C-alpha cells in the first residue's frame, strides 16, 4: 500500500498495518512522538490498535527534550 508519511510517499508490503508496526518497520528510534492519521491524533496507548490503510496521510513529530 502507498501512504503519505510527513508529506512523502511511502510504500509498505503490509496493508493494513498498525502504528506500532510502522514505527518498527521504519526503525524510528526516538521514544517521544506525536502521530496523526488523516488529522486525527493517535494517543500513545492506541499504537497497537490504530490501523494505517492505503492512501492515509500520516504525520509524525518527534519531541526532543530541552526547553
Amino acid at each position, binding site marked *: 500500500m502507498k501512504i503519505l508519511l510527513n508529506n512523502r510517499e511511502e510504500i509498505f508490503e503490509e496493508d493494513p498495518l498498525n502504528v506500532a508496526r510502522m514505527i518498527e518497520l521504519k526503525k524510528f528510534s526516538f*521514544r*517521544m*512522538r*506525536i502521530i*496523526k492519521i488523516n*488529522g486525527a*491524533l493517535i*494517543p*500513545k496507548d492506541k499504537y497497537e490498535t490504530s490501523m494505517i490503510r492505503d492512501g492515509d496521510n500520516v*504525520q509524525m*513529530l*518527534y*519531541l*526532543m*527534550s*530541552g*526547553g
Partner: protein
Amino acid sequence: MRFSEIESRLRSFRAGIAGAGGLGSNCAVSLARSGVGTLVIADFDKIEPANLNRQYYFADQAGMYKTDALKANIQRINRAVNVIVHTLKLDERNIPEIFAGCDIIVEAFDSSDMKQMLIETIQMRMPGIPVVTGSGLAGYGKNEAIRSRKIDDTLYVCGDESTTADDDHPPMAPRVSIVANMQANLVIEILLMKKQAGQS
C-alpha cells in the same frame, strides 16, 4: 499594519503558556511586548541559579516561583498585559481547566514526556485550539537547522526536531531564545489571522 493596530488587535486574545522555563519565559516576554492581552502561565518550579543561562529571570529572583517572577518581569515591561499565573504541575486533568478560554497554547516544557502529554491532552480534550510546540533546541550553533513547520491547523512545531538536551548538549540562551521567539512569532501570526475575539 502599523504596530498600534497590531497591538490593539492582539489585546483581545488570550494565550496559554505551559511551562515558564527557557521557552516559556522568553516566549511570554515577547508576547507581552507585542501586546497580547492575556497570558495564562503555568509552572510549578522555583528559579535556580543554573536557569539563568537561558531563562528570562534575574539573579536576585533565585528561589522565587517562576510564575511569580515572570509575572513581575512582564509587568515591568508592559503593564497593559493581564498575566494569570498557576503555580502547579500540569497534567491530563487540569490542562483543560487551566487553559480554558485560551485562543492558542504554547508548549514550553523541558521534558519530552511532558511535551507529549500536553499535546495529546490538548488535541484530544480541547479540539480546534492550536498548539505551538518547541522540539530540538539544545546546544549552540547550527542556525540553519532551526525551522518552523505546520503539521495542520492545530499543531505547529519550532526547532531543529533532532537535538536532545543532555550533559554534552545543554540548552543555552541563544538557541532556546531563538526557538521561543519563533513560537511567539508564530502565535502572533496565527492570532492575527483569526477573527478578533468577540466579533462575529
